Protein backbone atom coordinates (compact mmCIF):
# COMPACT_ATOMS: atom_id res chain seq x y z
CA UNK A 1 0.00 0.00 0.00
CA UNK A 2 1.26 3.46 -0.88
CA UNK A 3 1.63 5.78 2.07
CA UNK A 4 -1.09 8.41 1.82
CA UNK A 5 -0.34 12.18 2.49
CA UNK A 6 3.26 11.53 3.44
CA UNK A 7 4.33 14.77 1.80
CA UNK A 8 6.61 13.01 -0.67
CA UNK A 9 5.39 12.73 -4.21
CA UNK A 10 4.06 9.31 -5.05
CA UNK A 11 6.51 7.43 -7.32
CA UNK A 12 3.79 7.01 -9.92
CA UNK A 13 0.92 9.42 -9.42
CA UNK A 14 -0.78 8.49 -12.71
CA UNK A 15 -1.00 4.85 -11.72
CA UNK A 16 -2.12 5.70 -8.21
CA UNK A 17 -5.14 7.65 -9.44
CA UNK A 18 -7.44 4.79 -10.49
CA UNK A 19 -6.64 3.06 -7.25
CA UNK A 20 -9.11 5.33 -5.51
CA UNK A 21 -12.41 4.25 -7.03
CA UNK A 22 -15.77 5.75 -6.21
CA UNK A 23 -18.44 3.64 -4.55
CA UNK A 24 -20.26 3.20 -7.87
CA UNK A 25 -17.16 1.84 -9.58
CA UNK A 26 -16.91 -0.96 -7.08
CA UNK A 27 -19.61 -2.96 -8.85
CA UNK A 28 -18.18 -2.53 -12.34
CA UNK A 29 -16.30 -5.40 -13.91
CA UNK A 30 -14.46 -6.19 -17.05
CA UNK A 31 -15.87 -9.27 -18.73
CA UNK A 32 -18.62 -11.57 -17.50
CA UNK A 33 -18.47 -12.61 -13.87
CA UNK A 34 -18.39 -16.38 -13.33
CA UNK A 35 -21.82 -17.89 -12.78
CA UNK A 36 -22.68 -18.54 -9.17
CA UNK A 37 -20.21 -16.10 -7.68
CA UNK A 38 -21.14 -13.17 -5.51
CA UNK A 39 -19.97 -10.86 -8.31
CA UNK A 40 -22.37 -12.44 -10.76
CA UNK A 41 -25.18 -12.17 -8.24
CA UNK A 42 -24.43 -8.52 -7.67
CA UNK A 43 -24.25 -7.87 -11.45
CA UNK A 44 -27.70 -9.44 -11.82
CA UNK A 45 -29.06 -7.02 -9.24
CA UNK A 46 -29.28 -9.59 -6.45
CA UNK A 47 -28.02 -8.94 -3.00
CA UNK A 48 -25.27 -11.15 -1.66
CA UNK A 49 -26.07 -14.85 -2.20
CA UNK A 50 -24.59 -15.78 1.16
CA UNK A 51 -26.34 -15.66 4.53
CA UNK A 52 -27.35 -12.18 5.55
CA UNK A 53 -26.23 -12.77 9.09
CA UNK A 54 -22.53 -13.66 9.07
CA UNK A 55 -22.32 -14.26 12.81
CA UNK A 56 -21.83 -17.85 13.95
CA UNK A 57 -25.08 -19.34 15.20
CA UNK A 58 -23.75 -21.13 18.27
CA UNK A 59 -26.98 -22.98 18.92
CA UNK A 60 -27.12 -24.37 15.39
CA UNK A 61 -23.46 -25.25 15.49
CA UNK A 62 -23.89 -27.14 18.74
CA UNK A 63 -26.89 -29.00 17.33
CA UNK A 64 -24.88 -30.04 14.28
CA UNK A 65 -22.02 -31.30 16.40
CA UNK A 66 -24.33 -33.18 18.75
CA UNK A 67 -26.05 -34.80 15.76
CA UNK A 68 -22.75 -35.81 14.17
CA UNK A 69 -21.39 -37.15 17.45
CA UNK A 70 -24.55 -39.07 18.24
CA UNK A 71 -24.62 -40.58 14.75
CA UNK A 72 -21.00 -41.71 14.91
CA UNK A 73 -21.39 -43.00 18.47
CA UNK A 74 -24.44 -45.03 17.52
CA UNK A 75 -22.57 -46.61 14.62
CA UNK A 76 -19.51 -47.17 16.79
CA UNK A 77 -21.59 -49.08 19.36
CA UNK A 78 -23.43 -50.95 16.62
CA UNK A 79 -20.05 -51.94 15.17
CA UNK A 80 -19.09 -53.67 18.42
CA UNK A 81 -22.49 -55.18 19.05
CA UNK A 82 -22.36 -56.62 15.54
CA UNK A 83 -19.49 -58.89 16.57
CA UNK A 84 -21.54 -60.64 19.26
CA UNK A 85 -23.85 -63.06 17.42
CA UNK A 86 -27.22 -63.97 18.93
CA UNK A 87 -27.41 -67.49 17.58
CA UNK A 88 -24.57 -69.96 17.88
CA UNK A 89 -24.02 -73.12 15.90
CA UNK A 90 -21.96 -74.87 18.51
CA UNK A 91 -22.19 -78.40 19.94
CA UNK A 92 -24.87 -78.89 22.58
CA UNK A 93 -23.45 -78.68 26.09
CA UNK A 94 -26.01 -81.13 27.50
CA UNK A 95 -25.78 -84.76 26.40
CA UNK A 96 -26.23 -88.37 27.56
CA UNK A 97 -23.19 -90.64 27.87
CA UNK A 98 -24.80 -93.98 28.77
CA UNK A 99 -25.27 -95.97 31.97
CA UNK A 100 -22.98 -95.66 35.00
CA UNK A 101 -22.31 -99.38 34.90
CA UNK A 102 -20.49 -98.90 31.58
CA UNK A 103 -17.65 -97.07 33.29
CA UNK A 104 -15.04 -99.07 35.15
CA UNK A 105 -12.74 -97.83 37.89
CA UNK A 106 -10.34 -95.15 36.66
CA UNK A 107 -10.33 -92.79 33.69
CA UNK A 108 -12.43 -93.40 30.58
CA UNK A 109 -11.35 -91.36 27.54
CA UNK A 110 -13.90 -92.59 25.01
CA UNK A 111 -15.82 -89.26 24.94
CA UNK A 112 -12.74 -87.04 24.67
CA UNK A 113 -13.10 -86.48 20.92
CA UNK A 114 -16.86 -86.21 20.85
CA UNK A 115 -17.68 -84.24 24.00
CA UNK A 116 -14.31 -83.12 25.39
CA UNK A 117 -14.83 -84.94 28.70
CA UNK A 118 -13.35 -87.81 30.67
CA UNK A 119 -15.52 -90.03 32.85
CA UNK A 120 -13.76 -90.84 36.06
CA UNK A 121 -14.80 -93.52 38.58
CA UNK A 122 -13.32 -93.72 42.06
CA UNK A 123 -14.32 -96.34 44.61
CA UNK A 124 -17.20 -94.18 45.89
CA UNK A 125 -18.01 -91.73 43.06
CA UNK A 126 -18.51 -91.21 39.34
CA UNK A 127 -17.70 -87.72 38.04
CA UNK A 128 -16.95 -86.07 34.71
CA UNK A 129 -13.83 -83.97 34.14
CA UNK A 130 -14.11 -81.22 31.54
CA UNK A 131 -11.03 -81.89 29.37
CA UNK A 132 -9.67 -78.37 29.33
CA UNK A 133 -6.37 -77.43 30.90
CA UNK A 134 -6.91 -74.69 33.46
CA UNK A 135 -3.78 -72.92 32.30
CA UNK A 136 -4.68 -71.76 28.78
CA UNK A 137 -7.31 -74.16 27.57
CA UNK A 138 -5.60 -76.93 25.59
CA UNK A 139 -6.81 -80.50 25.90
CA UNK A 140 -4.41 -82.56 28.03
CA UNK A 141 -3.55 -86.16 27.11
CA UNK A 142 -4.29 -89.11 29.42
CA UNK A 143 -1.07 -91.05 29.95
CA UNK A 144 -2.16 -94.47 31.32
CA UNK A 145 1.43 -95.64 31.91
CA UNK A 146 2.16 -92.62 34.10
CA UNK A 147 -1.35 -92.48 35.55
CA UNK A 148 -1.63 -88.77 34.85
CA UNK A 149 -2.96 -86.13 32.48
CA UNK A 150 -0.29 -84.13 30.67
CA UNK A 151 -1.00 -80.95 28.72
CA UNK A 152 0.99 -80.78 25.45
CA UNK A 153 0.96 -76.98 25.32
CA UNK A 154 2.87 -75.93 28.45
CA UNK A 155 3.36 -79.15 30.38
CA UNK A 156 0.78 -78.94 33.15
CA UNK A 157 0.29 -82.32 34.88
CA UNK A 158 -2.79 -83.61 36.67
CA UNK A 159 -3.36 -86.82 38.57
CA UNK A 160 -6.03 -89.34 37.62
CA UNK A 161 -8.72 -87.21 39.33
CA UNK A 162 -7.68 -84.05 37.49
CA UNK A 163 -5.82 -82.48 40.43
CA UNK A 164 -2.86 -80.38 39.22
CA UNK A 165 0.55 -81.28 40.60
CA UNK A 166 3.05 -79.87 38.07
CA UNK A 167 3.40 -77.15 35.45
CA UNK A 168 1.68 -73.77 35.21
CA UNK A 169 -1.93 -74.90 35.77
CA UNK A 170 -3.43 -72.75 38.57
CA UNK A 171 -6.13 -75.20 39.74
CA UNK A 172 -7.51 -78.70 39.19
CA UNK A 173 -9.47 -79.31 36.01
CA UNK A 174 -13.13 -78.33 36.22
CA UNK A 175 -15.85 -80.97 36.61
CA UNK A 176 -19.08 -80.94 34.65
CA UNK A 177 -22.55 -81.19 36.11
CA UNK A 178 -23.84 -84.78 36.12
CA UNK A 179 -27.23 -86.27 36.94
CA UNK A 180 -29.15 -89.44 36.21
CA UNK A 181 -31.87 -89.32 33.57
CA UNK A 182 -35.16 -91.17 34.26
CA UNK A 183 -33.92 -93.94 31.97
CA UNK A 184 -30.84 -94.40 34.15
CA UNK A 185 -28.31 -92.82 31.78
CA UNK A 186 -25.86 -90.13 32.87
CA UNK A 187 -26.67 -86.62 31.65
CA UNK A 188 -23.65 -84.30 31.44
CA UNK A 189 -23.86 -80.49 31.23
CA UNK A 190 -20.53 -78.86 30.37
CA UNK A 191 -21.98 -75.37 30.68
CA UNK A 192 -22.32 -75.92 34.44
CA UNK A 193 -18.79 -76.42 35.76
CA UNK A 194 -17.61 -77.06 39.32
CA UNK A 195 -14.27 -75.45 40.14
CA UNK A 196 -11.66 -75.62 42.85
CA UNK A 197 -9.92 -72.23 42.56
CA UNK A 198 -6.56 -71.88 44.25
CA UNK A 199 -6.91 -70.92 47.90
CA UNK A 200 -10.68 -71.19 47.83
CA UNK A 201 -13.10 -73.89 48.92
CA UNK A 202 -13.62 -76.75 46.48
CA UNK A 203 -16.95 -77.08 44.71
CA UNK A 204 -16.17 -80.72 43.84
CA UNK A 205 -18.32 -81.97 46.71
CA UNK A 206 -21.35 -79.90 45.73
CA UNK A 207 -24.45 -81.83 44.74
CA UNK A 208 -24.40 -82.30 40.98
CA UNK A 209 -20.61 -82.47 40.76
CA UNK A 210 -20.62 -86.24 41.12
CA UNK A 211 -22.81 -89.34 41.26
CA UNK A 212 -22.61 -91.72 44.14
CA UNK A 213 -23.96 -95.18 44.76
CA UNK A 214 -24.19 -95.95 41.02
Amino acid at each position, binding site marked *: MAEPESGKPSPNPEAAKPAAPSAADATKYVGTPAVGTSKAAAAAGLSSPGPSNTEIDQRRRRLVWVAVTAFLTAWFLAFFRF*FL*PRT*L*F*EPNTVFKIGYPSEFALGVDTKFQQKFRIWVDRTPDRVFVIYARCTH*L*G*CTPDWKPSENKFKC*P*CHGSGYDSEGINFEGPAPRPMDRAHVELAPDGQIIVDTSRLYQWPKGQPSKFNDPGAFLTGV
Partner: protein
Amino acid sequence: MADENNGKNGKVGLVDRVKDDIQAMKVDIPAKAKEQIEGLKDPTKTQVYTSIFRHKHDDTPRNRALGVLSNVFLHLHPAKINRDAVRYSFTWGMGGITFFLFNILTYTGVLLMFYYHPSKVQAFRDVLYLEHDVPFGKILRNMHRWAAHLMVIGVWLHMFRVFLTGSYKKPREFNWNIGVLLLVFTLLLSFTGYLLPDDQLGFWAVTVGTNMARATPLLGHEGPFGSMLGMTPYNDVRFGLLGGSIVDANALLRSYIWHCIGIPIVASILMIVHFWRVRKDGGISGPAPVMLEAEADKPRRGPKAAGE
Protein backbone atom coordinates in the same frame (compact mmCIF):
# COMPACT_ATOMS: atom_id res chain seq x y z
CA MET B 1 -25.64 -23.13 -37.84
CA ALA B 2 -28.93 -24.93 -38.19
CA ASP B 3 -30.44 -21.68 -39.45
CA GLU B 4 -27.94 -21.47 -42.30
CA ASN B 5 -29.05 -24.83 -43.61
CA ASN B 6 -32.73 -24.17 -43.28
CA GLY B 7 -33.04 -22.05 -46.43
CA LYS B 8 -33.69 -23.14 -49.99
CA ASN B 9 -29.97 -23.81 -50.47
CA GLY B 10 -29.70 -26.37 -47.69
CA LYS B 11 -27.76 -28.76 -49.88
CA VAL B 12 -25.39 -26.06 -51.05
CA GLY B 13 -24.70 -25.16 -47.42
CA LEU B 14 -23.81 -28.74 -46.65
CA VAL B 15 -21.49 -28.99 -49.63
CA ASP B 16 -19.81 -25.76 -48.61
CA ARG B 17 -19.28 -27.02 -45.15
CA VAL B 18 -17.78 -30.30 -46.34
CA LYS B 19 -15.47 -28.32 -48.64
CA ASP B 20 -14.42 -26.16 -45.70
CA ASP B 21 -13.76 -29.23 -43.60
CA ILE B 22 -11.65 -30.83 -46.29
CA GLN B 23 -9.69 -27.61 -46.65
CA ALA B 24 -9.13 -27.52 -42.90
CA MET B 25 -8.03 -31.15 -42.86
CA LYS B 26 -5.48 -30.46 -45.57
CA VAL B 27 -3.84 -28.03 -43.15
CA ASP B 28 -4.52 -29.93 -39.94
CA ILE B 29 -3.46 -33.43 -40.87
CA PRO B 30 0.09 -32.57 -41.92
CA ALA B 31 0.40 -30.42 -38.81
CA LYS B 32 -0.82 -33.28 -36.61
CA ALA B 33 1.48 -35.72 -38.40
CA LYS B 34 4.39 -33.38 -37.86
CA GLU B 35 3.50 -33.21 -34.19
CA GLN B 36 3.34 -37.01 -33.97
CA ILE B 37 6.73 -37.41 -35.62
CA GLU B 38 8.24 -34.83 -33.32
CA GLY B 39 6.66 -36.67 -30.41
CA LEU B 40 8.36 -39.86 -31.52
CA LYS B 41 11.68 -38.06 -31.77
CA ASP B 42 11.33 -36.52 -28.32
CA PRO B 43 8.53 -38.08 -26.24
CA THR B 44 9.14 -35.66 -23.38
CA LYS B 45 7.62 -32.87 -25.51
CA THR B 46 4.26 -34.61 -26.06
CA GLN B 47 1.16 -33.57 -24.21
CA VAL B 48 0.72 -37.07 -22.83
CA TYR B 49 4.18 -37.00 -21.31
CA THR B 50 3.91 -33.52 -19.86
CA SER B 51 0.52 -34.32 -18.37
CA ILE B 52 2.10 -37.15 -16.38
CA PHE B 53 5.50 -35.65 -15.54
CA ARG B 54 4.98 -32.04 -14.64
CA HIS B 55 8.54 -30.84 -14.36
CA LYS B 56 11.84 -30.99 -16.23
CA HIS B 57 14.50 -33.54 -15.50
CA ASP B 58 17.58 -31.35 -15.76
CA ASP B 59 19.89 -32.10 -12.90
CA THR B 60 19.18 -29.07 -10.76
CA PRO B 61 18.40 -29.14 -7.04
CA ARG B 62 14.93 -27.83 -7.82
CA ASN B 63 14.10 -30.57 -10.30
CA ARG B 64 15.49 -33.23 -8.03
CA ALA B 65 13.25 -31.99 -5.25
CA LEU B 66 10.27 -31.79 -7.60
CA GLY B 67 10.88 -35.35 -8.72
CA VAL B 68 10.11 -36.41 -5.17
CA LEU B 69 7.48 -33.84 -4.32
CA SER B 70 5.35 -34.29 -7.44
CA ASN B 71 5.16 -38.08 -7.05
CA VAL B 72 2.30 -39.28 -4.88
CA PHE B 73 4.32 -42.19 -3.50
CA LEU B 74 7.69 -40.50 -3.15
CA HIS B 75 6.26 -37.33 -1.65
CA LEU B 76 5.83 -39.19 1.61
CA HIS B 77 9.60 -39.29 1.78
CA PRO B 78 12.01 -36.48 2.52
CA ALA B 79 13.01 -34.64 -0.66
CA LYS B 80 16.53 -34.35 0.66
CA ILE B 81 18.28 -36.11 3.44
CA ASN B 82 21.59 -35.96 5.19
CA ARG B 83 23.96 -38.38 3.50
CA ASP B 84 25.16 -39.77 6.82
CA ALA B 85 21.63 -40.42 8.05
CA VAL B 86 20.98 -43.04 5.36
CA ARG B 87 24.22 -44.88 6.02
CA TYR B 88 23.29 -48.53 6.55
CA SER B 89 25.51 -48.74 9.58
CA PHE B 90 23.25 -46.06 11.07
CA THR B 91 19.76 -47.12 9.93
CA TRP B 92 20.35 -50.84 9.39
CA GLY B 93 17.79 -50.32 6.60
CA MET B 94 15.28 -52.07 8.81
CA GLY B 95 12.32 -49.78 8.26
CA GLY B 96 12.68 -50.12 4.51
CA ILE B 97 13.18 -53.87 4.71
CA THR B 98 10.07 -54.19 6.85
CA PHE B 99 8.06 -52.25 4.29
CA PHE B 100 9.52 -54.36 1.50
CA LEU B 101 8.45 -57.51 3.35
CA PHE B 102 4.98 -56.04 3.83
CA ASN B 103 4.77 -55.59 0.06
CA ILE B 104 5.87 -59.19 -0.51
CA LEU B 105 3.27 -60.35 1.99
CA THR B 106 0.56 -58.35 0.27
CA TYR B 107 1.46 -59.76 -3.12
CA THR B 108 1.82 -63.40 -2.06
CA GLY B 109 -1.13 -63.11 0.30
CA VAL B 110 -3.49 -61.91 -2.41
CA LEU B 111 -2.38 -64.77 -4.64
CA LEU B 112 -2.91 -67.32 -1.86
CA MET B 113 -6.44 -65.97 -1.42
CA PHE B 114 -7.29 -67.24 -4.89
CA TYR B 115 -7.00 -70.86 -3.71
CA TYR B 116 -8.01 -70.61 -0.05
CA HIS B 117 -11.53 -70.99 1.39
CA PRO B 118 -11.88 -69.87 5.02
CA SER B 119 -14.17 -72.73 6.05
CA LYS B 120 -13.57 -75.63 8.42
CA VAL B 121 -14.09 -78.22 5.70
CA GLN B 122 -11.85 -76.68 3.07
CA ALA B 123 -9.18 -74.56 4.78
CA PHE B 124 -6.67 -77.29 5.60
CA ARG B 125 -7.31 -79.12 2.33
CA ASP B 126 -6.65 -75.89 0.45
CA VAL B 127 -3.34 -75.51 2.22
CA LEU B 128 -2.37 -79.06 1.21
CA TYR B 129 -3.59 -78.30 -2.31
CA LEU B 130 -1.43 -75.16 -2.39
CA GLU B 131 1.55 -77.06 -1.07
CA HIS B 132 1.35 -80.01 -3.43
CA ASP B 133 -0.53 -79.13 -6.58
CA VAL B 134 -1.08 -75.45 -7.30
CA PRO B 135 1.61 -74.15 -9.70
CA PHE B 136 4.09 -72.12 -7.64
CA GLY B 137 1.77 -72.65 -4.65
CA LYS B 138 4.51 -74.02 -2.47
CA ILE B 139 6.88 -71.14 -3.07
CA LEU B 140 4.12 -68.57 -2.62
CA ARG B 141 3.02 -70.07 0.69
CA ASN B 142 6.58 -70.33 1.91
CA MET B 143 7.43 -66.81 0.80
CA HIS B 144 4.37 -65.64 2.73
CA ARG B 145 5.38 -67.62 5.78
CA TRP B 146 9.04 -66.58 5.82
CA ALA B 147 8.32 -62.96 5.00
CA ALA B 148 5.86 -62.93 7.90
CA HIS B 149 8.49 -64.21 10.31
CA LEU B 150 11.09 -61.81 8.95
CA MET B 151 8.71 -58.86 9.12
CA VAL B 152 8.17 -59.38 12.83
CA ILE B 153 11.94 -59.58 13.32
CA GLY B 154 12.41 -56.52 11.09
CA VAL B 155 9.98 -54.44 13.10
CA TRP B 156 11.75 -55.33 16.32
CA LEU B 157 15.19 -54.52 14.89
CA HIS B 158 13.86 -51.26 13.44
CA MET B 159 12.51 -50.29 16.86
CA PHE B 160 15.76 -51.34 18.49
CA ARG B 161 17.75 -49.12 16.10
CA VAL B 162 15.39 -46.20 16.64
CA PHE B 163 15.78 -46.66 20.37
CA LEU B 164 19.57 -46.90 20.25
CA THR B 165 19.94 -43.77 18.11
CA GLY B 166 17.50 -41.84 20.30
CA SER B 167 15.26 -41.22 17.31
CA TYR B 168 12.15 -41.60 19.45
CA LYS B 169 12.94 -38.31 21.18
CA LYS B 170 11.53 -34.87 20.47
CA PRO B 171 10.41 -33.98 17.80
CA ARG B 172 9.74 -37.61 16.80
CA GLU B 173 7.65 -38.79 19.79
CA PHE B 174 4.46 -38.93 17.75
CA ASN B 175 6.02 -41.09 15.08
CA TRP B 176 7.40 -43.44 17.71
CA ASN B 177 3.85 -43.95 18.92
CA ILE B 178 2.61 -44.62 15.39
CA GLY B 179 5.45 -47.14 15.19
CA VAL B 180 4.32 -48.85 18.38
CA LEU B 181 0.84 -49.19 16.89
CA LEU B 182 2.38 -50.63 13.73
CA LEU B 183 4.21 -53.17 15.88
CA VAL B 184 0.90 -54.18 17.46
CA PHE B 185 -0.77 -54.51 14.07
CA THR B 186 2.18 -56.52 12.74
CA LEU B 187 1.80 -58.93 15.64
CA LEU B 188 -1.96 -59.09 15.12
CA LEU B 189 -1.45 -59.88 11.43
CA SER B 190 0.92 -62.63 12.48
CA PHE B 191 -1.53 -64.00 15.03
CA THR B 192 -4.59 -63.95 12.78
CA GLY B 193 -2.59 -65.60 10.00
CA TYR B 194 -1.58 -68.37 12.38
CA LEU B 195 -5.08 -69.88 12.51
CA LEU B 196 -5.70 -69.84 8.76
CA PRO B 197 -4.03 -73.18 7.84
CA ASP B 198 -6.47 -74.70 10.38
CA ASP B 199 -3.84 -77.20 11.49
CA GLN B 200 -3.13 -78.41 15.03
CA LEU B 201 -0.38 -75.86 15.59
CA GLY B 202 -2.48 -72.86 14.61
CA PHE B 203 -5.64 -74.13 16.27
CA TRP B 204 -4.03 -74.59 19.68
CA ALA B 205 -2.00 -71.41 19.37
CA VAL B 206 -5.18 -69.44 18.82
CA THR B 207 -6.93 -71.39 21.58
CA VAL B 208 -4.19 -70.37 23.97
CA GLY B 209 -4.04 -66.80 22.67
CA THR B 210 -7.74 -66.17 22.90
CA ASN B 211 -7.99 -67.84 26.30
CA MET B 212 -5.71 -65.09 27.55
CA ALA B 213 -8.45 -62.67 26.44
CA ARG B 214 -10.68 -64.22 29.09
CA ALA B 215 -8.56 -62.41 31.65
CA THR B 216 -8.95 -58.98 30.00
CA PRO B 217 -9.77 -56.37 32.65
CA LEU B 218 -13.42 -55.25 32.48
CA LEU B 219 -14.09 -56.93 29.14
CA GLY B 220 -13.14 -60.53 29.96
CA HIS B 221 -15.27 -62.84 32.08
CA GLU B 222 -12.29 -64.02 34.11
CA GLY B 223 -10.55 -60.66 34.27
CA PRO B 224 -10.62 -58.05 37.02
CA PHE B 225 -14.14 -56.57 37.39
CA GLY B 226 -15.32 -58.68 34.44
CA SER B 227 -17.91 -60.70 36.30
CA MET B 228 -19.11 -57.55 38.09
CA LEU B 229 -19.90 -56.05 34.70
CA GLY B 230 -21.87 -59.15 33.74
CA MET B 231 -19.25 -60.74 31.51
CA THR B 232 -19.76 -64.41 30.68
CA PRO B 233 -18.08 -66.69 28.12
CA TYR B 234 -20.98 -65.75 25.85
CA ASN B 235 -20.67 -61.96 25.76
CA ASP B 236 -17.11 -60.96 26.56
CA VAL B 237 -14.24 -59.75 24.38
CA ARG B 238 -13.10 -63.29 23.59
CA PHE B 239 -16.57 -64.13 22.37
CA GLY B 240 -16.47 -61.07 20.11
CA LEU B 241 -13.10 -62.05 18.70
CA LEU B 242 -14.04 -65.67 18.06
CA GLY B 243 -17.67 -65.14 17.12
CA GLY B 244 -18.55 -67.92 19.56
CA SER B 245 -17.45 -69.56 22.78
CA ILE B 246 -15.07 -71.98 21.04
CA VAL B 247 -12.46 -71.70 18.29
CA ASP B 248 -14.63 -72.85 15.41
CA ALA B 249 -15.86 -71.86 11.94
CA ASN B 250 -16.73 -68.30 12.99
CA ALA B 251 -13.29 -67.81 14.47
CA LEU B 252 -11.66 -69.04 11.26
CA LEU B 253 -13.72 -66.68 9.13
CA ARG B 254 -13.12 -63.73 11.45
CA SER B 255 -9.43 -64.44 11.54
CA TYR B 256 -9.40 -64.51 7.75
CA ILE B 257 -11.23 -61.21 7.35
CA TRP B 258 -9.14 -59.38 9.94
CA HIS B 259 -6.00 -60.87 8.42
CA CYS B 260 -6.76 -60.09 4.78
CA ILE B 261 -8.80 -56.89 4.96
CA GLY B 262 -9.25 -55.19 8.31
CA ILE B 263 -5.74 -55.06 9.73
CA PRO B 264 -3.88 -54.50 6.41
CA ILE B 265 -6.03 -51.44 5.67
CA VAL B 266 -5.47 -49.93 9.10
CA ALA B 267 -1.76 -50.82 9.01
CA SER B 268 -1.38 -49.29 5.54
CA ILE B 269 -2.96 -46.03 6.67
CA LEU B 270 -0.68 -45.95 9.68
CA MET B 271 2.32 -46.68 7.44
CA ILE B 272 1.44 -43.71 5.23
CA VAL B 273 1.30 -41.50 8.32
CA HIS B 274 4.53 -43.04 9.62
CA PHE B 275 6.52 -42.40 6.42
CA TRP B 276 5.08 -38.94 6.00
CA ARG B 277 5.95 -38.03 9.58
CA VAL B 278 9.57 -39.09 9.04
CA ARG B 279 9.76 -36.27 6.55
CA LYS B 280 7.71 -33.77 8.55
CA ASP B 281 9.73 -34.39 11.70
CA GLY B 282 12.93 -33.46 9.92
CA GLY B 283 13.89 -36.60 8.02
CA ILE B 284 15.76 -39.58 9.36
CA SER B 285 17.57 -38.57 12.51
CA GLY B 286 21.28 -38.80 12.08
CA PRO B 287 24.74 -38.00 13.21
CA ALA B 288 25.99 -34.44 12.75
CA PRO B 289 26.70 -33.76 9.06
CA VAL B 290 30.25 -34.40 8.05
CA MET B 291 32.12 -33.67 4.84
CA LEU B 292 34.36 -36.03 3.02
CA GLU B 293 37.97 -35.05 3.30
CA ALA B 294 38.12 -34.91 -0.47
CA GLU B 295 35.36 -32.33 -0.48
CA ALA B 296 36.69 -30.16 2.30
CA ASP B 297 38.31 -27.55 0.04
CA LYS B 298 35.64 -27.63 -2.66
CA PRO B 299 32.75 -25.19 -2.65
CA ARG B 300 29.53 -26.65 -1.25
CA ARG B 301 26.63 -27.11 -3.53
CA GLY B 302 23.34 -25.35 -3.20
CA PRO B 303 22.23 -21.79 -2.51
CA LYS B 304 24.82 -21.22 0.16
CA ALA B 305 27.63 -21.86 -2.30
CA ALA B 306 25.96 -19.60 -4.85
CA GLY B 307 25.81 -16.76 -2.32
CA GLU B 308 29.49 -16.93 -1.47
